[in-house]
């Protein structure tokens, strides 16, 4: 091992969203360089929204990400609504929670089924699996389809959802449509179980790697927190969303157009694994059973298990969605006007909207003047918060696998990055901009 000399350079890691590079230099068995590098073009969203109206911000910030669009829109709406003292009805709250479940379902199924599964099955992509394992691929596609149908029904569409507006919804589904959706969700459980069994059969391929780190997510006393909650950490006490800056502490790093974050340790992790570690007891019954299939329980420090945590959350989302629709039915769905525009009293204010999107905790912080024009914005993306953890994990993993071939090392490092399900385009949404 002392004579090991090699370089690993993965330009634009595949099967992740956005552009990131892995750089590794090993000389005489010593690791000289081990870097996770972001080269994505910065997009300046926080500068773009300054000067725009409160009624436009959610439309613009939705475009930060095509996959977590619903999440960005909701975080944005929560920030605007909090800043201006706008309340939403209980019905709208439930519908928004359904929207987040739809997003989680869609994103996790896509990630585990299309992006992670090929590694576990030893192929380059899901495309050859379409011929070799057609029924498994059809299962994944069917679940993905259901998730999209759900977001179409509740939000208008998955990417850049039109129905989500300040104060509520421009249009809501009918009870008939919701009950039809509920039947479809119930009918998807066998497919979920088949998918879980498939993943369980591949579980031995999931690397066993542990590095202790801090986990941060939302938490709530009444539910598995996705839409509302306080910021929780496995290391410290919880705090309201307004205090996010004391958790995130973003800083710029030489090799990256995206910033890193840290709290009480050198880095921390957000995402499905973080949420599961913190809120395990709030998971739905079937979700807990699914976690048990993999021996996954808090606190798990193996980042590769993030994908399994995502599968567990998929099951939870399906069960909780059924519960939410039952509640809506019991309360009776209140109709609203076609082309609904909730009343908003525009005033100056500043506040924070925090939401869990598939990849982790997301913060939108807006400041408005008395005309309702945005004067300042700050968005902290989950993937930014993970960059530090990714690199430290890489640095810890590399020595353990130095005895493998270069190809195997490259694959292991890529799998590590993929396990985090990074959303790199979002994370390069901005750099700090100071106006003079």
């Amino acid at each position, binding site marked *: 091992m002392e004579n090991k000399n090699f370089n690993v350079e993965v330009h*634009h890691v*595949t*099967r992740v*969203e956005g552009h990131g590079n892995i750089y590794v230099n090993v000389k005489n068995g010593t690791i000289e360089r081990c870097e996770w590098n972001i080269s*994505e*073009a*910065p*997009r*300046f969203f926080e*500068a*773009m929204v300054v*000067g725009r109206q409160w009624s436009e911000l959610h*439309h*613009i910030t939705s*475009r930060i*990400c*095509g*996959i977590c*669009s619903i999440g960005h829109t909701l975080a944005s709406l929560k920030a605007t609504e909090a800043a201006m003292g706008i309340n939403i009805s209980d019905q709208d709250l439930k519908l928004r929670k359904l929207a987040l479940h739809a997003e989680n379902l869609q994103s996790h199924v*896509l990630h585990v089924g*299309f*992006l992670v599964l*090929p590694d576990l099955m030893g192929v*380059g*992509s*899901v*495309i050859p699996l*379409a011929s070799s394992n057609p029924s498994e691929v059809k299962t994944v*596609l*069917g679940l*993905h*389809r259901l998730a*999209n149908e759900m977001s179409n029904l509740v939000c*208008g*569409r*998955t*990417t*850049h959802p*039109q*129905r989500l*507006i300040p104060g509520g*919804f*421009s*249009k809501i589904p009918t009870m008939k449509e919701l009950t039809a959706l509920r039947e479809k969700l119930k009918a998807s459980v066998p497919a979920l179980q088949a998918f879980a069994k498939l993943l369980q059969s591949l579980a031995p391929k999931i690397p066993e790697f542990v590095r202790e780190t801090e986990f941060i997510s939302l938490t709530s006393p009444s539910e598995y927190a996705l839409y509302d909650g306080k910021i929780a950490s496995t290391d410290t006490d919880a705090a309201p969303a307004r205090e996010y800056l004391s958790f995130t502490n973003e800083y*710029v*790093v*030489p090799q990256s*157009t995206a910033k890193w974050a840290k709290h009480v340790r050198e880095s921390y992790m957000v995402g499905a694994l973080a949420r599961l570690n913190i809120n395990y007891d709030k998971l739905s019954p079937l979700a807990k059973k699914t976690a048990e299939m993999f021996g996954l329980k808090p606190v798990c420090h193996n980042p590769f298990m993030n994908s399994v945590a995502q599968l567990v959350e998929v099951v939870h989302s399906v069960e909780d969605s059924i519960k939410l629709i039952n509640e809506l039915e019991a309360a009776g769905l209140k109709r609203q006007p*076609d*082309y*609904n*525009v909730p009343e908003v009293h525009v005033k100056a204010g500043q506040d924070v909207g925090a939401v869990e999107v598939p990849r982790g905790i997301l913060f939108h912080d807006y400041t408005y003047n008395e005309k309702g024009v945005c004067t300042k914005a700050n968005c902290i993306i989950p993937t930014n918060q993970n960059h530090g953890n990714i690199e430290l994990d890489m640095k810890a993993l590399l020595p353990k696998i130095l005895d493998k071939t270069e190809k195997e090392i490259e694959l292991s490092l890529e799998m590590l990055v993929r396990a985090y399900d990074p959303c790199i*385009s*979002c994370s390069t949404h901005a*750099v*700090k*901009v*100071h*106006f*003079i």
Partner: protein
Amino acid sequence: MKPKVAFFDFAGCEGDQLQIANLEEEILTLLGHVEVVSFREVMKEHSDNYDIAFVEGSCTRLQDEERLKQIRKNAKIVVAIGSCATIGGINSLKNHKDLVNVRQTVYGNKANLFDTYAARPIDAVIPVDAYVHGCPMTKEEFLHVVKSLLLGKKPEIPNYPVCVECKKNENVCAFERGQFCVGTVTRAGCNSCCVNEGTICWGCRGLVDNPNENSQKEVLIKYGLTVDDTINKFKLYFGWQEMKK
């Protein structure tokens, strides 16, 4: 011989490529007609030998131009997908920021961060053969363009405003509801999906070939929007197209 296709992304949110994933089972049918040789989000393999290149995202840096030119060289047909690639998209919103008065305060030596210029659609850099507009594009229109290319014909996309589709869908016009819409000068093809969902048209598909912009601005002001807000509305997606005129 199945044509070889490749997918590329620049500065964008990847929402258009997600619409391709959203084709669900139809992906399998599509794979019967084409061979995917490069699609970074979904597969490891990559090849520079492709016939049709689908490009998402805007060109926002000088270094992106080289990549685009290489794609143009390799491909017989280049298709821009999504508003960022077809008209500059929401990225062009920052083009109007007075960059002289904005000083980027950066922590550390971030030379590459200064490498950014006015966000532009990819046809500002290379010739483009077909467009799938929209933010995001719809999978229906994507399939329409792909089917046309496979059948050897130039894809037909509308050159009339969203009003046509809105009226066919029997929507109540936004202006009749006290809201402000730019669908009158925006290219149709989305089936007025946003108005169908109860809101307005924001203009994400870009201007029609020959819009009567002055008339539309007058209409907005007549119905009560301030001059500043009217100008701002046009900057949201039309920034690059208006600059070009």
